[in-house]
């Protein structure tokens, strides 16, 4: 398997992240189409267990599409999705939840007319009965949700809804959490908070694959990063290296090219 990767000259399949044992999640040469339009043209990336991997890219680069393909919401036309070395592409998203993949979709998608508590209980749907310890954990991570457990989710502020969306995914005891722009539309202070909590979640043992526009925050949290452009990985490296790369700094951190 590792030989396979080494033969692949694509930047996304490079060294760094892919060392050691079988990675938790691996995407190999994914091609995804919306009708006739190709959104992903051969994306490969690796998410090692216990790490945080960031996926950066401009609007429309295919970041959300990549996550949807990984969580089974979209079927790739070709390519493979491997979870612990086992092929899982072609498994429906509701089944894939049982394999320990939690997806916090773009735009939060909380159940707007259920209460916070009902949302969290829905998150534990695959477990038949919500684990009180999980509920406790979510409420410790997000004390704001604890105060508002009876509030209807649609009336929460944007930041609170994002917390709820993350909390709901955690209730299903995921080993791998796919997060699509958790900082979207949030005030800098809340973004800071969310990232601190994500760090804590990762330290508690959950692997994260993080799509972000907020490149500096994402790369500070991440171990490894990929940059996507029009459906293909154009750059990938360890997060600190990416963070200091002039091209990344110019394109995603808004720094002028000298």
């Amino acid at each position, binding site marked *: 398997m590792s030989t396979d990767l080494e033969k692949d000259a694509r930047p996304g399949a490079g060294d760094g992240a892919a060392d050691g044992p079988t990675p938790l999640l691996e995407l190999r040469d994914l091609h995804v189409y919306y009708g006739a339009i190709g959104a992903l043209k051969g994306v490969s990336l690796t998410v090692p267990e216990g790490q945080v991997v960031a996926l950066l890219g401009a609007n429309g680069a295919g970041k959300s599409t990549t996550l949807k393909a990984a*969580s089974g*919401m*979209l*079927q790739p036309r070709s390519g493979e999705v491997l979870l612990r070395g086992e092929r899982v592409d072609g498994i*429906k*998203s*509701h*089944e894939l*939840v*049982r394999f320990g993949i939690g*997806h916090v*979709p773009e735009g939060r*998608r*909380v*159940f*707007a*007319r*259920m209460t916070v508590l009902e949302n969290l*209980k*829905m*998150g534990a*749907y*695959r477990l*038949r009965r919500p684990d009180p310890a999980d509920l406790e954990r979510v409420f410790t991570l997000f004390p704001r949700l604890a105060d508002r457990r009876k509030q*209807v989710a*649609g*009336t929460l502020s944007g930041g609170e809804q994002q917390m709820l969306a993350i909390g*709901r*995914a955690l209730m*299903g005891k995921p080993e791998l959490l796919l997060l699509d722009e958790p900082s979207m539309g949030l005030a800098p202070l809340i973004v800071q908070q969310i990232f601190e909590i994500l760090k804590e979640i990762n330290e508690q043992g959950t692997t994260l694959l993080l799509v972000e526009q907020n490149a500096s925050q994402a790369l500070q949290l991440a171990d490894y990063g990929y940059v996507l452009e029009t459906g293909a990985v154009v750059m990938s490296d360890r997060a600190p290296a990416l963070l200091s790369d002039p091209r990344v700094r110019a394109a995603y951190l808004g720094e002028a090219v000298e």
Partner: protein
Amino acid sequence: MTAGVTAGKTPSAARLRKQSWYQQPRYRRLFAMVITAVVMAQVTGVQGARNDLFYALEENFTGTGIWIWLGIFLAIWAVREFLHGWLRGFVDRFKELAAAPSDAAARKDPPPSGVPGLVRRAADGSRAVRGLFRTHRGYQLGGMAALLGLLILLPLMVSTFWQQVMVDQIGMFLLIAIGLNVVVGWAGMLDLGFIAFFAIGAYSAAFWTGGLPVEPPVELNNFLVIPVAVLTCLIAGVLLGAPTLRLRGDYLAIVTLGFHEIVYLTAKNWTEFTGGTRGASSDRFSIDLGFWSYEWGLDPAPYYWLQLAFIVGVLFLFLRLEHSRVGRAWTAIREDEVAAASTGVDTVRFKLLAFAIGASTSGIAGVIYASKLGFINSEMFLVLLSVLALSYVVFGGMGSIPGVLLGTAILVWLPEYLRDSVDPQDRYMYLGGLLVVMMIYRPQGLWPSRRRQRELRMSQEGTGAADALGAQPGGAQA
């Protein structure tokens, strides 16, 4: 730019500002009251005559009826206009007295004497009773047992005509509405062809009891037909459901409507099998246990009790469903199918399940119906009935079992009741009027479930779709 320049182009704010009913000039409300009185006089007055177009108008506006109605509505107007403040104060005072701290025992000050004391004591009492019913299972069960007892005795207190209505119409539609509520109220799928399954149930009864022109492989007792009919309807429900589950809202409604039309036309035109419009017969219910046998005959009361038993049985099963994992999955699907799938809900399976459960309930109703009448023909299963069934569910309150029961009972009862008081031809006009008024002023239904009420309120405030039935973005995603 000066204010004068823009004023010419911007419309006047005063004209655009929406005024509530009670901010408008008083004469408009007076006018509305007079119109209402005129309408009421005409509606409650004598009926029209075939050869004189204006007979009813002349009669009603020269008689005393119009004056009585005018008096009533002018009095209402006068009270609301001139005594409103005074009434408000009175009501507020009453509420203030009644709204005491929630646990009466903890309150130190003794209730005041006289009328205020009485009010407070009455409020305490009713709160205590409500508390008992809410918290003590025993009282809940007791209340239900009392209600059931009343329902069991009900046919003994009414005329045969009403017994027939209760069995042939109310009871039948109650069972249908309970099933339809699963599909529409819980799973949020708009079904306009529900009576098709009822027809399938009815024809199953006729077929398996040897009433159709074709011979069944074995003749079954009517009770044994029920599981067979349930199975048939389950298969039909899945056959209809499987290809249509990707559809939502209006699209699904059209497909189910088409399905009903197919079933109806098959029943009507495949005369060698169904008997078409001339009809077919069906056996009646009977039990033969060897040592004891009973046969349901022409008397409606025994059917009533049988039907009641079925309804209670189905309710017993369904009430558990509502708060189970299945019920929660349906709620999530109604809310957001993609999010539901991402929490692990198999959306396809649960939508199919709702379809199948609903269909089989409708099928049971069909078997009972055919076995009661002993005769069926294709004209009993018009598409109109599907529309009516849906309106019963919506009227009562989608997703709320008590609401659906109450709404159905009222709406089925009303046209029968009106038989004596208005021109029988016009009965459904009043039903239509009631539905229109109800949907404008109380769209959540008579006795809405708390969840539906919240969903409706929030959609008015801009969160979520206007109702569970509307096409939702992402509804057809994988």
